[in-house]
């Protein structure tokens, strides 16, 4: 019988909704402190250069300038970066920071930048990944000695071959191809993407005595807190980091050098310092999505069985990363391994350092890129044997009990705070994976696939030059169980506050965590206050990465609420003269399960206990073991998307008519918020391939469209009308998620682009293997450009 919930699964309004609609939610740029200075950063115009000399005397002499920093007067430390220092003597990309100034106004700070004289020795630079791999190519990082990233002393990558390639293989891929009736192969590309957070990077730092308070717009509070303490050689106890409402990070609001630099400026000036990046510097000076080039080869039998899969991937790393190699590795152990199990599979990949902006996590973390490639060739394979692409996917997709390619541990994940579990096997999945088939079937049904699909090379409809087509893609993304913790503090009136270092940046964490805590404690939703991301009070956590808000942060909060409940039960048991396990909490009362009339208000137990606090650290390893194999496993959120497009073959314009996404979320804590998150990924993925184009000039390495007029985000007119953007929620509980819930926010990002490309093919008969599905590319593919 399904469990009855009072609060879980309800479409409750967001906790922070009223603050946001009144304009009261305070973001970092909104904070003003008395005596505050404004900082600006000087950025390199060159893609690769050594600073021969830097003269800041004129800038320092400008009235109103209070502090200037260069590589000569900042500590030589790595703020989580693997290749670069806080400020470097060598710059590795156009737009990289060279100096920092704090002044009494933004205008004076800006003027001071113009007074800094820098003499650069320009070094040869390389921007394209394949160019950078050629013998004799310039080194993007001279000190690193190679353009293929293969780890550092601080963070070795033991599985890398000496040439920097990371290989994974099971079975005998050559034999698999020999056994095939047909082989399809091709080279596919995926584009870079700029996070374009609505709020550009912003930081405020204030010193009081030896103590530092920082307001940072970040999604990984504990990591930035640790980094700040480390960069400034301070104890964590003297550093307080607050990230009340970070803004839509989408992966990009990760540690980087700005926060420690601003802290150093504030210390030097002895006044609070604020920086808010301009849109342009946010676009060139933060991060972007990796671009991929993938060679894909699939062997298939006439009956539809896949006999071999070979995937080879080259990614453009940029100048540095907060997650070197991890994103590529997640492509390998995620989409490339787990979507289509095949006994003979081989994957290899490398990541190439270039003189372009650094890359970071970005919605999907390697799975959208891998999925955009794999799901296009899967379509080609289905066509080769003339099988319906829905049927082909149903036949071949991952099922419970099947083994994927993934290894035990592809990288040493320990330094990330991942559980780094000894026995974690990425190649095995739990029973919940079978939602893959359910998602495919539900998306097909809702989108009327059967009625619309008329066979290969037959569009859904033809109206003069306008052709309508339909296409499918499926996707997975792991639901991370990172190290995290939570505290639930009971108050004297029977209400509770949950404290977590996870953030509310729009994804609904604050709402969902309150719903879970209220459900566990038998409180009302409004009885649970949420305090997030203030290191003075909130316990450590990995932060909002890897769709881990639910599966890590909320899981910890659930255990903490249960801990608090047990303490309340002990107090109540004594008063009611029963054993704690005879009790239940509901409707703000603790009562005897068998005799509900006998009980006390939760408030009474709180008052009697005076200080009742529940705590927990997640994950709890015993809860993440697969019943069949006894192995510690990962869980994946699943999506299937069917897209319908209409293409004007004269102009190349593609209208996206309808998108249907069926999405497994384990258990929907708040269905509305899950639908919000699906819509986010759908829209962002449409932008990724339809309109957003992060253009790096290939002769100078300069980003030529760092603004929101030329870098085009999907508008409300570019997306299907409301009835034609369908989200179907599927609940296939995860064994270790809170009430079975999975982290689901990123999976819908993986399925959109290939579904559009496959629909485009059905409409027009041309396959685009390149990175964008823009009108120019469509016309080019149609031979009309």
């Amino acid at each position: 019988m399904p469990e009855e919930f009072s609060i879980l699964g309800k479409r409750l309004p967001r906790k922070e909704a009223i603050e946001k609609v009144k304009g009261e939610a305070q973001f970092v740029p909104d904070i003003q402190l008395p005596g505050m200075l404004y900082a600006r950063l000087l950025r390199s115009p060159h893609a690769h250069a050594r600073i021969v000399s830097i003269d800041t005397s004129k800038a320092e002499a400008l009235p109103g300038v209070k502090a200037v920093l260069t590589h000569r007067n900042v500590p030589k430390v790595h703020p989580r970066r693997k290749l670069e220092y806080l400020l470097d003597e060598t710059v590795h990309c156009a737009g990289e920071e060279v100096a920092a100034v704090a002044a009494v106004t933004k205008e004076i700070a800006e003027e001071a930048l113009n007074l800094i004289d820098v003499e650069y020795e320009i070094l040869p630079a390389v921007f394209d990944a394949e160019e950078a791999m050629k013998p004799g190519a310039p080194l993007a990082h001279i000190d690193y000695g190679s353009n293929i990233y293969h780890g550092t002393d601080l963070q070795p990558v033991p599985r890398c071959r000496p040439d920097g390639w990371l290989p994974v293989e099971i079975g005998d891929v050559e034999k698999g191809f020999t056994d095939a009736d047909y082989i399809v192969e091709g080279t596919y590309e995926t584009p870079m993407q700029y996070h374009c957070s609505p709020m550009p990077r912003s930081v405020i730092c204030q010193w009081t005595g030896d103590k530092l308070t920082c307001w940072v717009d970040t999604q990984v509070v504990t990591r930035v807190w640790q980094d700040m303490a480390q960069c400034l050689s301070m104890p964590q106890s003297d550093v307080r980091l607050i990230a009340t409402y970070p803004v839509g990070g989408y992966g990009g609001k990760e540690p980087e050098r700005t926060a420690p630099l601003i802290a150093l400026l504030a210390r030097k000036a002895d006044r609070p310092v604020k920086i808010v990046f301009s849109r342009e510097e946010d676009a060139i000076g933060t991060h972007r999505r990796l671009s991929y080039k993938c060679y894909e080869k699939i062997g298939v039998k006439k009956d539809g069985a896949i006999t071999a899969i070979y995937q080879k991937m080259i990614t453009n790393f940029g100048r540095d990363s907060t997650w070197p190699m991890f994103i590529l590795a997640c492509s390998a152990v995620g989409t490339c391994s787990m979507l289509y199990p095949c006994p003979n599979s081989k994957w290899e990949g490398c990541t190439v350092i270039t003189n372009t902006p650094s890359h970071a996590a970005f919605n999907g973390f390697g799975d959208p890129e891998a999925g955009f490639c794999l799901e296009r060739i899967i379509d080609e394979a289905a066509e080769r044997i003339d099988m319906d692409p829905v049927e082909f996917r149903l036949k071949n997709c991952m099922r419970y009990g099947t083994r994927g390619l993934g290894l035990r541990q592809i990288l040493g994940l320990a330094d990330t705070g991942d559980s780094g579990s000894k026995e974690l096997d990425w190649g095995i999945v739990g029973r919940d994976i079978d939602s893959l088939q359910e998602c495919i079937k539900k998306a097909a049904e809702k989108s009327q696939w059967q009625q619309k699909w008329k066979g290969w090379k037959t569009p859904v409809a033809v109206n003069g030059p306008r052709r309508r087509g339909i296409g499918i893609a499926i996707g997975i993304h792991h639901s991370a169980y990172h190290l995290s913790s939570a505290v639930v503090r009971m108050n004297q009136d029977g209400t509770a506050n949950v404290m977590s270092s996870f953030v509310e940046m729009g994804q609904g964490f604050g709402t969902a965590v309150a719903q879970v805590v209220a459900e566990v404690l038998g409180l009302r939703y409004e009885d649970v206050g949420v305090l997030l991301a203030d290191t003075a009070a909130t316990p450590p956590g990995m932060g909002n990465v890897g769709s881990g808000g639910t599966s890590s942060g909320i899981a910890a909060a659930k255990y903490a609420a249960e801990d608090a409940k047990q303490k309340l039960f002990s107090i109540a048991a004594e008063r009611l003269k029963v054993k704690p396990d005879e009790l239940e909490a509901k409707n703000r009362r603790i009562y005897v399960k068998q005799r509900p009339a006998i009980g006390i208000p939760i408030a009474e137990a709180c008052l009697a206990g005076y200080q009742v606090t529940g705590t927990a650290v997640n994950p709890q390893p015993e809860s993440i073991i697969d019943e069949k194999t006894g192995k510690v496993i990962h869980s994946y959120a699943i999506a299937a998307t069917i897209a319908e497009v209409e293409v004007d073959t004269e102009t190349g314009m593609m209208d996206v008519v309808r998108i249907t996404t069926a999405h497994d979320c384990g258990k929907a804590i708040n269905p509305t918020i899950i639908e919000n998150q699906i819509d986010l990924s759908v829209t962002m993925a449409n932008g990724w391939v339809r309109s957003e184009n992060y253009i790096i000039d290939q002769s100078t390495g300069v980003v030529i469209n760092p603004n929101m007029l030329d870098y085009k985000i999907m508008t409300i007119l570019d997306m299907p009308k409301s009835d034609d953007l369908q989200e179907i929620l599927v609940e296939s509980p995860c064994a270790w998620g809170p009430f079975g819930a999975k982290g689901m926010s990123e999976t819908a990002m993986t399925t959109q682009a290939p579904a559009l490309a496959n629909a485009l093919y059905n409409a027009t008969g041309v396959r685009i293997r390149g990175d964008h599905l823009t009108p120019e590319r469509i016309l080019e593919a149609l031979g009309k450009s």
Partner: protein
Amino acid sequence: MANEIYTITLAVNSDDYQLEVEAQWTLADVLREKLGLTGTKTMCNEGGCGACTVLIDQKPVLSCLTLALECEGKNILTIEGMADPATGELHPIQTAFVEHSGMQCGVCTPGMILTAKALLNDNPNPTEAEVREALAGNICRCGNYKRIVECVLAAAEMMRGGNWNA
């Protein structure tokens, strides 16, 4: 060299403010930094996103592209002035955004709400297509457009049923 200072009076949310401004200061900067009305957000500062939208004499205007000096003698409405000043009750558009989850990160929300208000002032009974047309200049990076349309249509219905003044 110091820039010339001008003294102006700005009428914001029915309050008059006498201010000293420099000629190049934008309305967005003055609202946020001089008046502390930080509910007005700036996402791009170059007219590319609609986040900084405020109403000037009931028309939606990008405050990042408007000089404060131009606004003398005009009525400016920001998100802080949307709720009923007497009772504090939310405006129906705000209520709809709360009830229908019209926001994710919340940065585009004030601009969306004010643009929607301008639409509903002129057209109390818009179609979905008209709502989309009106909001075409407001970027939501969180892709919440479907819910935002739902919010505006729900608000229109609430306003038609109530006695809300424009």
